[in-house]
């Protein structure tokens, strides 16, 4: 990469991370205000992973995500208005208000959905890769999941399957060290995700997930291999979730030292330092963060003003065939 291109790419990463941070901060605040209903899982501190991976994907590539999917969706290009309205449960949400944060999806940009079930996205991504391969598409599938997900059966089944059929799928284990409120290493045996993946025929690479540039570079290599027909790969990105498990979890149970250390390794700040070293003016970076902030504030304003979905919408998108309303007395 020659220097200017490199700067542009770094700025892309910086912009994406800033937008994710701004989106989730705005959503968190709105949740505290009581205007975002239901559970909300944010990924503050983890933005480097989503940004670094998705920068290497095309719109035709597909991703599946987990319960913590805002960053993945935004990095994949999902529309902000549709996302924010979805979180608010309003008309114009990507899922028409039926999904909410835990079921964010934007098929128009290849975002095949968040998932409320841990590991739920693994077989779906594997199958998407199989379908894409069958249809001779050049697109690949990318599957985001947490470190907690590697203790569920679908991890084994999905990776074995992907290796067996040599499928174009890239697995991303976004390792923030916690499974809900439990430290993952207290419930996980053996040497870790890379060993597990390799035992299933899927080569893996570990990267510092708080270094967006490193993620970008590693993902770039792996995406090229996957797209080149070399079969599935796994990227293990070590990161840290600064906030709690859900918006209502103040994360008081965490070691403050760990949180402080993580804040010092904040992926956005780190990339900012690097960009400054490479000569980008601080003002330019600030402008970029401000514009992300404004974009998301505007999205909140829009979502707040958006109408609630009409009750009739509850009865749509169920099935083409078969009544949805109960033939007898029904709610």
């Amino acid at each position, binding site marked *: 990469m020659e220097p200017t291109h490199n700067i542009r790419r770094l700025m892309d990463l910086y912009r994406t991370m800033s937008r994710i941070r701004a989106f989730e901060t705005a959503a968190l605040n709105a949740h505290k205000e009581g205007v975002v209903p239901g559970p909300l899982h944010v990924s503050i501190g983890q933005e480097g992973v989503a940004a670094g991976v998705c920068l290497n994907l095309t719109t035709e590539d*597909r991703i*599946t995500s987990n319960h913590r999917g805002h960053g993945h969706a935004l990095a994949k290009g999902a529309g902000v208005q549709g996302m924010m309205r979805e979180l608010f449960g309003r008309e114009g*949400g*990507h*899922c*028409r*208000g*039926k*999904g909410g944060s835990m*079921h964010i*999806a*934007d*098929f128009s940009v290849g975002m*095949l*959905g968040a*998932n*409320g*079930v841990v590991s*739920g996205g*693994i*077989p*779906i*991504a*594997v*199958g*998407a*890769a*199989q*379908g*894409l391969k*069958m*249809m001779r*598409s050049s697109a690949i*599938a990318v599957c985001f999941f947490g470190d907690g997900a590697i203790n569920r*059966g*679908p991890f084994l*089944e*999905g990776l*074995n*399957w992907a290796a*067996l*059929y040599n499928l174009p799928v890239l697995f991303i284990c976004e390792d923030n060290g916690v499974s809900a409120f439990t430290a993952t290493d207290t419930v996980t045996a053996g040497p870790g995700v890379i060993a597990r993946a390799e035992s299933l025929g899927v080569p893996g690479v570990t990267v510092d997930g708080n270094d967006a540039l490193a993620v970008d570079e590693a993902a770039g290599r792996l995406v090229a291999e996957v797209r080149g027909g070399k079969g599935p790969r796994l990227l293990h990105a070590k990161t840290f979730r600064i906030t709690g498990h859900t918006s209502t979890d103040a994360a008081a149970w965490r070691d403050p030292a760990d949180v402080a250390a993580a804040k010092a390794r904040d992926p956005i700040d780190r990339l900012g330092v690097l960009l400054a070293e490479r000569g980008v003016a601080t003002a330019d970076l600030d402008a970029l963060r401000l514009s992300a902030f404004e974009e998301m504030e505007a999205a909140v304003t829009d979502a707040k003003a958006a109408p609630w979905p009409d009750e009739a919408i509850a009865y*749509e*998108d*169920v*099935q*083409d*065939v*078969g*009544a*949805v309303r109960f*033939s*007898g*007395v029904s709610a």
Partner: protein
Amino acid sequence: MSVHQVTLVEAVRLAALQEMRRDPTVWVMGEDVARGGLYGQYKDFLPEFGAERVVSTPISESTIMGAGLGAALVGTRPIIEMRIFDFVMCAMDELVNQIAKIRYMFGGQARPSVVVRMPHGIWRNSAAQHSQMLESWFVHLPGVIVVTPSTPADAAGLLVSAIRSDDPVLFFDPKNLFPVTGDVASVIEPIPFGKARLAREGRDLTIVSWSAIMPAVEQAAATLAAEGIAADVIDLRTLWPWDQAAVCASVEKTGRLLVVQEAVSVAGFGAEVVSTVVETLGPARVKAASRLGAPRIPIPFSPPLEDAVKVTPAKIVAAAKAAMA
């Protein structure tokens, strides 16, 4: 269009074959399918369609189900073969939380066009883990179509509809009836979901049933007819949607309803039929409404024990007579 006599398993084989020839996005996956499937329902598919469309899989039920969904999301139409119904218990998250809900949760963006084939029912002393009938569960589950044919022609026509359906279809092959023969057309036309088949016409009593127990019902109806009791015998063919109009019209005529199910009676689909009829017609227009089914016990292995819990023509005749009393 010529018609020929084939077994039920051959009928569904021909249906899948026809659809895979018609539509290159249709494919099948499951354990041993490259070898033709456990019952020969995919016999000779591998040489014709190749290993990419006839995929023998690992013993990985959750991924068989979930990968089927993923493949549907990018535009293919997988037939997901579960081998024996009971094994779908290993893939329930993928079926119940993902396939059934994905279109709705995502506000219509996803179309999980899969057919999940689950040969079910009592099958010669296979015991508790290979004989279950839980089809009524899925009627209670929003997002899926539930298909329960009993004849070769119906199984073939409904499988064609299932493969062409954009809604996910749970197709319950009546595995005990695989060797039963019947006429099937050389070009298999789709049969619409939600239309019952009137297997026999009568006036005294309405017998409603579906799936593998239908032959016993028809046999019982013949016995009853010989004794002067003429039953309308309705084969529902699909449980969701189900032909409420046909059943209600028949009970309006006969005044008496007997639902016969191979599954456990308690909280089975028979309860839905009885309740719907009573609610729709009003109790005053129903002289009798009852259910016959298995007791609430797992299926035992030993022949006499299995026989004890099986619904038989004699038991159906007795239940029908009780309903006439």
